[in-house]
């Protein structure tokens, strides 16, 4: 199997982290968090992928001939996506409130307000 998906997962993880560490805008930061999370989707799907196998959809009466890719990791990915959406929604709601109270969404700007 190709190592490309794994390299892509690693790259997504680190590019997302870089974005979060250097972010100057909370919305940008939340999107970067999403990028970091995408790496887990890619990794999970790559782990379960089998070259030449079909999607894991089975119906009664149809014999399984060629086998299927691993449905467990797909279920994990779905769960992961649900979690990601929830966290993103909550974070963006908090960011809007920060904007209302502080008039800025720059983490560094907020530090100056703090002390």
């Amino acid at each position, binding site marked *: 199997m190709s190592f490309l998906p794994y390299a892509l*997962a690693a790259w997504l*993880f680190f590019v997302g*982290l870089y974005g*979060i*560490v*250097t*972010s100057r805008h*909370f919305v940008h*930061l939340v999107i970067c*968090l999403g990028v*970091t*999370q995408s*790496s*887990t989707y890619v*990794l*999970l799907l790559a*782990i379960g992928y089998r070259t030449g196998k079909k999607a894991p959809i089975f119906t009664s009466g149809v014999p399984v001939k060629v086998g299927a890719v691993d449905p*467990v*990791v797909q279920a*994990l990915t779905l*769960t*992961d996506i649900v*979690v990601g959406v*929830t*966290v993103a929604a*909550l*974070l963006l709601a*908090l*960011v809007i*409130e*920060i904007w209302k*109270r*502080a008039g800025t969404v720059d*983490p*560094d700007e*907020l*530090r100056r*307000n*703090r*002390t």
Partner: protein
Amino acid sequence: MTLVPLVVAVPLLAAAVLAAFGHFAPSRLDNAVAIAVTAAVTVISTVLVFRSSDETIHYWFGGWRPRSGIAIGISFSVDPLVASIAALVGALATAALIVSWDYFAERVPPYFHVLVLVFVGAMVGFVLSSDLFNMFVFFELMSVPAYALTGYRIEQQSALQGAINFAVVNSIGAFMLLTGIGLLYGRTGALNLAQIGQVLSRGPADGLVIVAFTLICAGFLTKAGAIPFHFWLSDAYAVAPAPVCILFAGVMSDLGVHGVGRVYWDAFSGVFARHAAAVTGVFVAVGLATALFGALLAFVQAGLKRMLAFIVISHVGVFLAAIGLLDALGLAGATLLVVADGFAKGAVFCAVASLARRTGHTDELAAHGLGRQLPVTRVLFAVGGVALAVLPPLAILGGHAWLRATFVVTSALTGAAVLRAGARIFLGFGPKRDPLLVAPPRGEEAEVPPTPRAGALLWTPGVLLLAAGLAVAFAPGLAQRAADQAARAVDRPALAAETLHGVPAPPREAGGLSPVRYAYGAAAGLLAVSLAALGLYRRRIPGLVERPLDCLKLLHDGVVGDYVAWLTAGTAVLGVLFAFLLRDGP
């Protein structure tokens, strides 16, 4: 009919019902329903402690039991150690909801109770799960309500900032955890911890196993607040409403340590068997650093909630080191004292809630002498402070004398911080100014308007929690029984055979415990009182501590990007250490 799934299902279902119909009922009724549910969780978990004392209960959802040694379903594994943590969760939640009855001045919206119930159900599910992905799901499910509860005071900028920092840092920890789980699944084809352990123990400790172990540890240690993954913790705990802090400080952080222990023993103890000393070295080193750092920073805080947040960090270090000793005594000590210390921390937070409601302050210097009118809260705070010094050293049932002595000093510092603050607030001792202490950031402490009438509902749960904590810590014979149970939990092959093949694991007996640990506890208590007096009446700060302390304070700047950089660096260091120490030769 088994009780096991109820402890998770009941709070989650009740949360759904409250979310749907809570708006139509008075807030008090919602709260009463939530209290009834968390009390039920406490009772059922306590029953499970006794039911599982002879053999571990393995509950397979939907009846999908393992076939010929392959786990196809998802399981909860309940032994008295994890069931006692579940009971702690339930008891603290009950206390938190009772405190919230009188604590909030405004009408409490139904979503507050919904969030607490989801939080409770997820934490209980997390401790009972013996399936790695299930642990991840509950890890996330307990995180999201926690973020929301942190930001409950949505009108406060610092609360919003604390919630964002919490959410971002913990989400990254969760991604690391998930990546580690994915790698393990790719290697072993299993998500059940026992089965992962069986497959891994047949192979070498190679790069993939080490990377997976590093990422899983980093994920759990982020939740636990070990150094350098802890930065979000003091920001979040300082701004969450005091009733919520009872749950956060009492048990949430310790669950991260529990996760490390469970995953190590069930999945990795076989493959790393030859390198157990190296794993111990890393965990004890991280634990020591965390305990010391947390204790020092706790001692210089003026804000009570921030002080308690650093105390949580310090105690997490002690428990991590206890588990890191990698024997049955360490696991038993960590679990038993997580429960006892969790009760004590919850009790102190009840006292803080009572103080805040009555005086409107939780800042030691601002509240100087204001607590004189609160007799019960005063006693609760003082006894709680002594308990915070005495309890953690009791967790270290083995290990070198110097290790235990160090934890005596760090625990004494944490207790001393509480006692000093208590002496200032409730007795009016000491000066009103102190150049050593860090004032909390502006706007962080003012939380609820003061009322002349502070209800007994604020301190009664605290008194009960503290009594429960001291009972767990000092009940004769309980530590020995915990050690015997832990001896079964650390026997991975027998436990795996029991989980996967239904072969009952034999009862085990740990060695006898020496009562010398009480001497360490007593030493910590005495040292705490002296350090508190020193904190009140010393003339000046030694220059030797002043400069490093200033640097440490500067690191906690509230900028989430910096925190994530520390998290990344910490994971990298952990990975490099493990790669050097744990790898099997070619």
